């Protein structure tokens, strides 16, 4: 469970990127955070991921206050999460296999097990036949699927995706969110930051509306 208590974040005075955000996301939830550009979607996701620290407030993940975790131990938190970015953030000099294998390599999984799990994950995103290709030779949609495979390969409890369909055409975007939905059904908590109303209307179980850093609405359709 992810719990945010009165989160405030200020990059520059007098503007608040997040204003008194209090939120509870249960295990296995499929969550959309939406709002116009500059509403604080990315800041909120980065705060949950502890890439940035809030100016005020507390964040608990499974009861652990992540703001109290020492910088040198932050990797333990990140290993429980999978991240997907709008710009994919792939290593373009490494093969699809190597990109997806990275989260397993950092936790010291053996070579055989890595091969098995990477292959199985790439099968899920239908990229197993392009396992030895370099990402630069794949389409944008395929590159995003590589990024998703990397995010889910070590079965994280939480998946955070910041505008994962921002660079994709509507058809591909639909395909990618369907993939996230399937992952969510297997038990992971999925939180997606997006301003694509069409997708949100179609897939959104839980929707959080942000504006100027404040929660201005919540919807639950489950």
């Amino acid at each position, binding site marked *: 469970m992810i719990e945010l208590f009165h989160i405030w974040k200020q990059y520059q005075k007098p503007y608040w990127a997040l204003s008194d955000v209090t939120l509870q996301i249960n295990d296995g939830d499929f969550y959309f955070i939406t709002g116009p550009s500059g509403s604080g979607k990315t800041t909120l996701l980065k705060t949950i991921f502890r890439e940035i620290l809030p100016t005020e407030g507390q964040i608990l993940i499974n009861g652990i206050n992540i703001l109290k975790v020492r910088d*040198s131990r*932050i*990797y333990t938190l*990140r*290993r429980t999460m999978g991240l997907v970015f709008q710009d994919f953030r792939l*290593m373009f000099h490494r093969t699809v296999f190597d990109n997806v294998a990275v989260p397993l390599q*950092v936790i010291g999984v053996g070579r055989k097990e890595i091969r098995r799990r990477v292959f199985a994950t790439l099968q899920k995103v239908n990229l197993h036949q392009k396992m030895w290709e370099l990402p630069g030779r794949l389409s944008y949609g395929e590159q995003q699927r590589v990024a998703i495979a990397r995010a889910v390969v070590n079965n994280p409890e939480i998946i955070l995706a910041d505008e994962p369909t921002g660079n994709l055409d509507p058809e591909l975007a639909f395909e990618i969110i369907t993939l996230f939905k399937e992952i969510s059904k297997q038990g992971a908590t999925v939180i997606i930051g997006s301003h694509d109303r069409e997708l949100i209307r179609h897939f959104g179980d839980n929707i959080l509306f942000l504006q100027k850093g404040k929660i201005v609405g919540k919807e639950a359709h489950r």
Partner: protein
Amino acid sequence: MIEKVKFFFRVTGNNLWQFRTRNLFSVTIICLSFLTVGIFVSLTNNLRDATRDLASNMSIAFYLDAKLPAGAVEAVRQEIARPAFVESVKLVSADEALERFRLNFPELADVVAGLKANPFPPALEVRVNAKASASKEVVAFVEGMKKRPGVTDVLFNQDWVEKMQGFSRLAGAIGAFLGGILILTSFFIISNVVKLNVFARRNEIEILRLVGGTNLFIRIPFWLEGITLGLLGSLLSLGLLFIVIQLFPVYLGASLGALQELLRFRYPDLTQAVALLVGGAATGFIGSATSVSKFLKV
């Protein structure tokens, strides 16, 4: 543990191969920098050895009274041989001195043939060890011997010895100073080349950090790459240095004339060769270690 070590070496090998053009550039820069240092070391070695040889070859000649009986000559010889700095004492008789002159100046054979008596006095030739060749101790000894009965004259070019020793010291100091600057410059060039290499891969570091890689996990392959590039560059520079040393006399040696002796290359000794390799590895390591740290903020 072995599996992890293998993993890091595999990743390092892959990275070296995947960025081969950039790495080749780094190795070339490292190699050229160390080759410059190596050539300098080689020339300094020669200059140092040459001046040391010249200084240590200095000898002192004590000319004796021609009428001095054999027992008295032996007494003088024993007295001269006593100080610790004396390496050897050789008696050159009047006949031997004449023979030497004849051999050294064959064009004056007519003059020698016309001599009614041998004009050369017997002498004791003394060689002192290099360290003491112009010390106060030797000077005092020579001054003392000049006054000794039976010794008619002393040939001791103190100024020359002092100049050679001064030149040797100056060569060493200039060598150390210029060598230091050269090594420091090479270090900055190499370190910046490695930094550029790491900077070009900051995206990879960022990804490894975001998927939960520990700082050590991210750093190790970069360290290994830095060390490998440094070692390869310095090893290559040693190989090129040996080629330069072999080819230099063939192509340029003769044209240098009198300078040939001073500009002769000498092979670096084992310590210098190892220092060059260790220096290469250390530069590569420090260059990559400092630059990776910049991208490892949480």
